[in-house]
C-alpha cells in the first residue's frame, strides 16, 4: 500500500513536468484527485477494510490525497504566474557605453587628491600673453626657453602657453596669499611629433603659498599624488634641477613602472622617469603675483598628466591621445 501511494505521487510529478498548458493540468487533476481517481477509489475502499487496516491506512490515504491536491494546485498556480508571451529569452546584445579620455580620468584623480589636501582647482588660458607665460615667471627676454623653435608665437602678439605655470600668476593675482591651487590644462611646444613627442600635451600646475613652507611639504604632496594616481607606493627621488621660476628647483623622478626600476627603453635604462619638476617659488615670481616674499614663501610643481596617463595605462605611442581614434579611446570607460 505504501509503495502504491508513493508511486502515485511520483507519477503525478512526472506528468506535471511535461505539461505546460493549464487545461492539460486540469485534466491531470481530475485523473489523479477527481472522483474517479485511484486515490478516491482507495478512500472508498477504506470502509470495507478491517478495523486494524482502517487504523493503519486511513490517515495515510487521506494525507496522500491532500499532498496530491497540493502538488496539482501548485502547478496551476505556477502556470498562472507565467507570462504567456513566448520569445527568445537568450538574446544578448552588446551594450554601447561612452568613454572619457584617459587624460580626463587621470586629471580627475589628481585633482581629487589635491582637493582632499585643500587645493582649489582653477583653469587657465591656452592662448596666453608673453607676460604670464614668461616674464612674470622670471624668464628673462633672452632666455633659451623663449626661442621661436620651442614656442608657438601667434600673429596677434600672443602665444600658445608652453606651461601651465602662468596660472601661478593668475591665481596669486586673483586670490592673494595664503594660497593652495592647482590647475590642470593643455600646453604646447613646437616639437616634431613622433611616438614619444607631442606638440600638445597636458600638465597640472600646483602651488602652495603660506608662511613658513618647507621643501619637506613639497616632497609629501608629490609622494601622495603619485601614490594615489598610480595605485601603489612609488619610489621617488629628488635631484637638483633648474627653472627660472623656482629656487631651489628640483626634478622629481619616480621609479619606472614599466620595468620596475631595472632599466628599459622607456626610462632610457636608468630605472627612473622624470615626472614632476618643481621647487620653492622664486621671490621674483611672488613679487610678480603681488605677494611679499619677506612674509610668504611656497612651492610650486608641474606634473605631466600625459606622461602619467601613459604610464598608468601603458600607452606606448603618445600620438594615440590626440588621434581621436575611437578604436583606442572607447576602452576608457568611466570609473
Amino acid at each position, binding site marked *: 500500500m505504501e509503495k502504491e501511494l508513493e508511486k502515485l505521487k511520483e507519477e503525478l510529478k512526472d506528468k506535471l513536468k511535461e505539461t505546460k498548458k493549464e487545461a492539460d493540468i486540469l485534466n491531470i487533476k481530475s485523473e489523479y484527485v477527481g472522483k474517479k481517481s485511484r486515490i478516491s477509489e482507495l478512500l472508498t475502499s477504506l470502509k470495507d477494510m478491517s478495523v486494524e487496516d482502517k487504523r493503519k491506512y486511513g490517515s495515510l490515504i487521506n494525507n496522500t490525497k491532500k499532498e496530491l491536491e497540493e502538488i496539482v494546485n501548485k502547478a496551476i498556480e505556477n502556470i498562472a504566474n507565467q507570462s504567456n508571451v513566448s520569445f527568445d529569452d537568450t538574446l544578448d546584445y552588446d551594450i*554601447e*557605453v*561612452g*568613454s*572619457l*579620455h584617459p587624460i*580626463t580620468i587621470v586629471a*580627475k584623480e589628481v*585633482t581629487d587628491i589635491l582637493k582632499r589636501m*585643500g*587645493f*582649489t*582647482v*582653477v*583653469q587657465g588660458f*591656452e*592662448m596666453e600673453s608673453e607676460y604670464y607665460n614668461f616674464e612674470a615667471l622670471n624668464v628673462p627676454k633672452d632666455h*633659451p626657453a623663449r626661442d621661436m623653435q620651442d614656442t*608657438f608665437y*601667434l*600673429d*596677434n602678439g*600672443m602665444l*600658445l602657453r608652453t606651461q601651465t605655470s602662468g596660472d601661478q600668476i593668475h591665481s596669486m593675482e*586673483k*586670490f592673494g596669499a*595664503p594660497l*593652495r591651487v592647482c590647475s590642470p590644462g*593643455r600646453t*604646447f611646444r613646437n616639437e616634431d611629433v613622433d611616438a614619444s613627442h607631442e606638440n*600638445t600635451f597636458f600638465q597640472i600646475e600646483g602651488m602652495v603659498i603660506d608662511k*613658513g*613652507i*618647507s*621643501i*619637506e*611639504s613639497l*616632497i*609629501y604632496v608629490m609622494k601622495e599624488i603619485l601614490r594615489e594616481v598610480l595605485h601603489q607606493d612609488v619610489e621617488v*627621488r*629628488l*635631484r*637638483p634641477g*633648474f627653472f627660472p621660476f623656482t*629656487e*631651489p628647483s*628640483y626634478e622629481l623622478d619616480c621609479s619606472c613602472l614599466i620595468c620596475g626600476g631595472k632599466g628599459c627603453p622607456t626610462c632610457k635604462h636608468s630605472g627612473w622617469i622624470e615626472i614632476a619638476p618643481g621647487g*620653492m617659488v622664486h*621671490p621674483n615670481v611672488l613679487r610678480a603675483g603681488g605677494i611679499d616674499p619677506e612674509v610668504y*614663501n611656497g612651492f610650486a610643481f608641474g606634473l605631466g598628466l600625459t606622461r602619467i596617463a601613459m604610464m598608468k595605462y601603458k600607452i606606448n605611442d603618445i600620438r594615440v*591621445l*590626440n*588621434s*581621436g*581614434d*575611437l*578604436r583606442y*579611446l*572607447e576602452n576608457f570607460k*568611466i570609473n
Partner: protein
Amino acid sequence: MLISCNKLKSHIKNSEDIDWLKIWDIFTIRTAEVEGVKVVGNQFDGVVVAEIKECQDHPDSDHMHILKVDIGEEELVQVVCGAPNVKVGLKTALVKVGGHIDGMEITARPLRGVISNGMCCSGRELGISDNHDGILELPTDAPNGMDLKKYYPFINDIIAEIDNKSLTNRPDLWGHYGIAREIAAITKHELLPLEIEEVKNDQEDLDIVIKDPNLCLRYCGLKIENITNNKSPMAMQVFLFYCGMRSINLLVDLTNYLMLELGQPMHAFDARVVKSIEVGLANDNDTYTTLDGEERKLTHDMLMIKNGDKYFGIAGVMGGLDSEILPDTTSVFLESATFNAGSIRKTALALGLRTEASARYEKFLDPNLTIIALKRLVYLLHQENPNLKFVSNLTDIYPTKVEEGHISLKKKTVNIYMGKVIEDNIIKDILERLEFKVEVTKDTFEVTVPTFRHTKDIFIEQDLIEEIARMYGFENLEPKPLKLDLVALEKENIFNQEYEVKRLLATKYNYHEVHSYIWYDTEILKMLNVSKDNVKILGRQENNILRDDLSFSLMNIVYNNLKNKPRFNIMEIGTIIKNNQNKRVLSLIMVDEEKNTELLYNKAKEQVKYLFSALKNISVEFKDNVKEESYYDKSLGKVITLENTTLGEINVLAKNITSKLAKKKIIICIDIDMDKYELLSKENILAKEVSKYPSVTLDYTILMNNKKYVDLKNILEEFKSNLVIKWELVSIYENKYTIRYTLGSMNKTLEQNDISKFKERFLNHLETHNLSLGE
C-alpha cells in the same frame, strides 16, 4: 657631456678611495643627471708591444705583408698584416694568439695560405681612437712584449655621460675640473690645484682692441714661437677620443683639452697671419668662410674677431680657414676670451652653428677663467716643446673686473626651507667644500660667492639654500604634511562642471571623449574646400590657423573614424579662439546614416534639453538660426537660448560637405558655450503643492494639415483653463499629432460636468484655429 674618470682622478687627492662606478648615482641626486656610465678599454686583452723585424710581400696578395715581429720572446712571431704603414723597425700593437679583441678570440690561422700567429691592430680596432689608416704606431722606446695596457694605463677608463640640459645653469661644470670639484665636495676629498706656468711679461703687449665691453668681457692673447713638436701625447689623444673629440695636432688638441678640462674655449691662430686684433660687430650682408669650409652670411649683431681689417673668426663660435694651424705652423697666437652669453647664443642660432665653444659661452662663463686657462695651456705646451719662445706679453684686456659676490643668508630662512634646524657647522662645511667663504654670525651666514658661481647661478639666499639642500641630501628630508587652516577655499567650479557634463554625456548618450588640436587641420580644410581666417601661428605653413569653431575642427577626427565605424558620437570640451579671446566650448557630434536624419535631429534637441535640465534645472528653448558659415545647412540650424541669452547652437553639416567625408551620412554638431554654462546658476527649487484629488487624462489626435508643431504649440498655449495641470505631445503618426491633457483640481474630484465643459471649450478653440480631430 662625456667625462673621463681618469681625468677626474688626476684632480682629486686620494681619489682611489672613491668608487668611480657608483659615484654617478650620488652625483645625479647631488648635482646633475648622469645618463650613462661606460667602462672603456675592456674590449681587448692579450695585446702587447711588437717590433717589426722582417717584412716581406705576401706572394698571393697585392697589399698584404708577412711580418716577423719581436714580442720579447725567444723567437720572432710570424703574422700576416694588410696595413699600408708596415715597415721594419715600427713598433705596433699585436693581439697574441689566445688574446681577444671585440669579443673575438685570435687564433693561429692561415691568411691566403700563410699562417698568421696574431693580429696587428689600428687605434680604431683597439677602441682608443678613430684612426684606421694603418696599424698603431708606438714610440721606439716601448719595451717589446709589454702588455699595451701596462704601457698605456690610461686606456682603462670609466666614461660618464652627463645630461647637458641639467648643466644649463652651471657654467662651472662644463669642464672636468668643475666636475672634480663637485665630486671632491660630495665625497669630502681634497681638490688638487692646477699646475700652470706664469709668463714673464718682458716683451711687448699685443695690439688688441675690444670695441664693445658689453659683448666681449675679457680678451687674453699670447704669441709663442719655435713650436717644433706638434704631436699630442698618446694620453691626450685617448682622452680626447673618449670625450668625443678628434685628435688633430698638439696646438688644436691643447685648446680642446683645456676646454674639456676647464670649460674655457680657446683658439690657436697661426701667428704668421696675425697683425692686430679687434673684437667688434660685423656689417650686414658681409660673408665669412668658417673652418668647416662653409660661407656664412653675417649680420650687424654678430660679434667678430678681426685681424687688421679682415674678419678672423666668429667670436665664440668658430674660427676661419685662413688662420688654421697647418703642419708647418711653428708660431701661434693663443686666444682665451669671454664673450656675452646672449650674443653668442643668438649668433650661433642665427647661423645654425652650435659648437662646443658656443655651447659653453652661452652658459655665462667666468671671465676670471681665461687667464688661468691660458697659463695652463702654456704649461702643457712647454712640456712637449722645451724650447718654445714667448714673443709677446700675455696681453690681458679686461675692461670691467668681475668680483666675488656676497650674500647674507639668514639662519631663519634656511630653517624654514629645510623644515628643520640644521647645525651651523654642517652648513658651513657644505658651503666651504663648494669653495664659498663663510663667516657665521648670531643670525646669519655671511657668504662670499666665488666668481665661477657668480656669473649667472648664485645671487640670492634661495640659491644658497639649494646648495645646502642638495648637499645635505633630499633623501635626508622627511615628507611632512601641510598644515591646513580650516577655512573654506575659493569656490572654483569649472573643472568639476566640465567633468560632470562629460560624464553625463558619456554615460547617458554614449559619447566618446576625444582630444584634438587647437588648430584646424589644413589638409581637411582643403579637402572640404572651406577657407578659415583666424589667429595664426607664426612660422608655420600647415596647421597654422587656430580654430574658431570646435565642431568643425573635429572633422578630421570624424573623417578618420568613418573609415572604421558607420555611426558614432564624439565629444570634446576645448578652447577655441574667437575675436582674439579664449573661449571654452563643448562640442557634441553625432554621425549616422542619412536616413536617420530626423531621428538624430530630435535626439540632438533632447540631449541639449536633458543636459541643461539635469545639471542646471533649466529649461532651454530652440530658435531658428541662420549661420554665416557655408558648411552648415542653412535651414536646420538652431540656437539654444535661455530668455535672451544664447547658450549654444545645433547645426547640421551641409550636404555637399558631408558627402566629401563619406557617402549617405548625416553629421549633427552641437556647440555649447561653456563659459556661459559655467556661470548659469541652478534654478532655485521651491517645494510645490500637489492635489489630494485624482487627475484625469484626455487624449486628442489632431490633424495637422501643413502646420508645424510650433504652430500647434502656440495655439495650445493660447488656450487657458484652470483645470489643466499640463499638456504634452505623446505620439505622431503621419500628420496626426496626439496630445495628452492632464486635468485636475486642488479642491475636488472632477465631475463629468467639469470635463464636458472643458471638452466643449477646447474643441471650439481648435475649430477657431482651423484644426480638426483625426480618427
